[in-house]
């Protein structure tokens, strides 16, 4: 059983109201025009959603990852693009700075990120370094007290919104005697000469979420922009990704729940052959299976989240949650679309958007195969 306290339940109810009243009505148009609805993002900032798991001294709300997951789940029910904007904004944008930043870096960046006035991206993936992040090619060399960055990044969320102020990039900052790359993370403010945010991708789903390739051609930032220790880039982002997976699992859970809610309502109201389609056992059983998937996804998600917050090991649980929840989302989206018939293929319908959007939950923040690798490793197989 998941035991949320009163404050958490109230937050959940509040975000649910916001999702229904503000996010949902804007979702279709945002998806159609492939634009992040900045007015919705602004209101999320005002509500403190981007500050949920951060302490008040950095402008945060003083909550934990559990509250963040609750908020992401509620948003993902109606609009995955908005949910991932929050998930990436917090998990990939602000969290690495909070976890690894110096006091000065935290003071400089966090208040604007936690209030939602600004967004940050995290650039790890490259054309030839996705699942194998160790294969990173982007380089950064120290020259006259500055890092000079060359290379490119792929698929970077929140990197080109009107309020994006920086991207944390991983780069090779040296090699040891055996030639093994030393990876570090560096803060690169938007507008740094030599740093270009390329035009947005033409994606299958998550249309309103902002995703760009980035190029660096001799981009220079102060030496003090190193995030965390030199050579610790890898260790730092592994921690970031472990945590991020839990939030990503919440997104999958919300999406799976959204598909179920829509399908239940439709199965009761849509009449075919003179009776509601839900009166057919096949449809009712499909709904029952969808419910079971959501239940599994939610239990796995909050088990990982409560472990994370309690300071217990959560790596395996995070990977399980990420895998189970992303599959629940994809499977429920497919079933929901089927239940909706032709309407399920029309973009105005939420289930159609979930159908296009859910696939990437099985890919981003580590593919299902990568989660299986992590779980297997925890079982002693590598």
């Amino acid at each position, binding site marked *: 059983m998941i035991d949320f306290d009163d*404050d958490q339940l*109230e*937050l959940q109810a*509040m975000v649910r109201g916001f999702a229904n009243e503000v996010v949902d009505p804007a979702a279709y148009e945002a998806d159609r025009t492939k634009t992040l609805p900045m007015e919705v993002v602004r209101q999320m900032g005002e509500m403190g959603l981007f500050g949920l798991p951060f302490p008040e001294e950095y402008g945060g709300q003083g909550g934990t990852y559990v509250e963040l997951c609750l908020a992401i789940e509620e948003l993902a029910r109606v609009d995955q693009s908005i949910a991932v904007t929050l998930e990436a904004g917090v998990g990939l944008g602000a969290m690495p700075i909070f976890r690894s930043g110096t006091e000065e870096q935290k003071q400089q960046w966090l208040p604007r990120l936690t209030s939602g006035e600004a967004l940050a991206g995290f650039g790890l993936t490259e054309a030839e370094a996705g699942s194998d992040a160790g294969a990173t090619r982007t380089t950064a060399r120290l020259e006259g007290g500055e890092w000079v960055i060359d290379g490119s990044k792929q698929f970077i969320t929140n990197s080109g919104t009107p309020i994006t102020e920086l991207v944390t990039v991983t780069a090779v900052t040296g090699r040891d005697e055996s030639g093994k790359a030393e990876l570090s993370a560096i803060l690169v403010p938007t507008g740094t000469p030599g740093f270009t945010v390329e035009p947005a991708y033409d994606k299958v789903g998550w249309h309103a979420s902002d995703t760009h390739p980035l190029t660096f051609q001799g981009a220079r930032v102060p030496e003090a922009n190193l995030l965390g220790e030199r050579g610790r880039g890898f260790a730092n982002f592994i921690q970031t990704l472990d945590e991020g997976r839990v939030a990503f699992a919440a997104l999958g859970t919300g999406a799976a729940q959204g598909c179920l809610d829509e399908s239940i309502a439709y199965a009761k109201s849509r009449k075919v052959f003179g009776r509601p389609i839900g009166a057919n056992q096949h449809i009712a059983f499909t709904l029952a299976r969808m419910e079971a998937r959501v239940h599994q996804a939610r239990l796995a998600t909050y088990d990982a989240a409560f472990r994370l917050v309690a300071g217990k090991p959560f790596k395996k649980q995070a990977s399980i949650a990420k895998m189970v929840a992303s599959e629940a989302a994809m499977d429920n989206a497919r079933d929901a679309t089927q239940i909706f018939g032709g309407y399920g293929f029309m973009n105005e319908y939420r289930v159609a958007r979930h159908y296009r959007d859910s696939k990437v939950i099985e890919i981003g923040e580590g593919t299902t195969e990568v989660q299986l690798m992590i779980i297997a490793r925890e079982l002693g197989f590598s």
Partner: protein
Amino acid sequence: MRIIVLIKHVPDTWEERVLDPVTGRLDRSASERVVDEITERALEAALALKDRDKSIEVVALTMGPSESTGAIKKALSMGADSGIHLVDDALAGADAMTTAATLAAALRDAGADLIIAGNESTDGRGGVIPAMLAEHLGLPALTFVSELSIDGGRVRGERATETATSVVSAPLPAIVSITEGMPEPRFPSFKGIMGAKKKPVASHPLADLEPALAGSRSSASSVVLTCEQRPGRTGADPIVDEGDAGTKLAGWLIERRLAEQRLV
């Protein structure tokens, strides 16, 4: 400066409302209770003034059964500084006159520079409380405003009519009732939700305020004397369109004297 906002816990507007066949009153337990949207807007108006001038104190006042603490808590999470809850069994079923007298007693007791209320609640829909309060307290009332500001000891509002917009103003203290034209209420933040627990809420039984009112079931108006559930639809006689539905419909209306036949 202290602003007191009148808030009300009501059955959810989106659900169907039913009358209790025994008491003839609205069955307030039949649906989920929420803070009345119009009173949330009234609170938003007060909080917007507070955003501009941090020295403003915002107090949420409600009269209602013990569950109505939920309404106060919501107001505190949104940003009100404190709450006052008037709760007394004797107030169950209070009509507008009793309600106004009780609220006036509480407002006199608390003291306010500005009182903001919604123009009418979504459950009772009397729309008379703000004016009654103004009478009780001897305050100027700006009713039905859709824009609100305070400046130099005066409150100013705009009241839209069908033909023009009147600009109304009054010296403080005053009472204002607002319409749906005011901005939508903000959503509380998580910090607000957690902070709400630490904010003071005064809970007054009636006898504290106005002994004369206590226990007297002093509602002067009567409510519905009898009511019954609407019977299910029967005897429907569908008109099938065989190219002559218009004529059939007209015939149906004429038969029931709902329309007149004219020969042209």
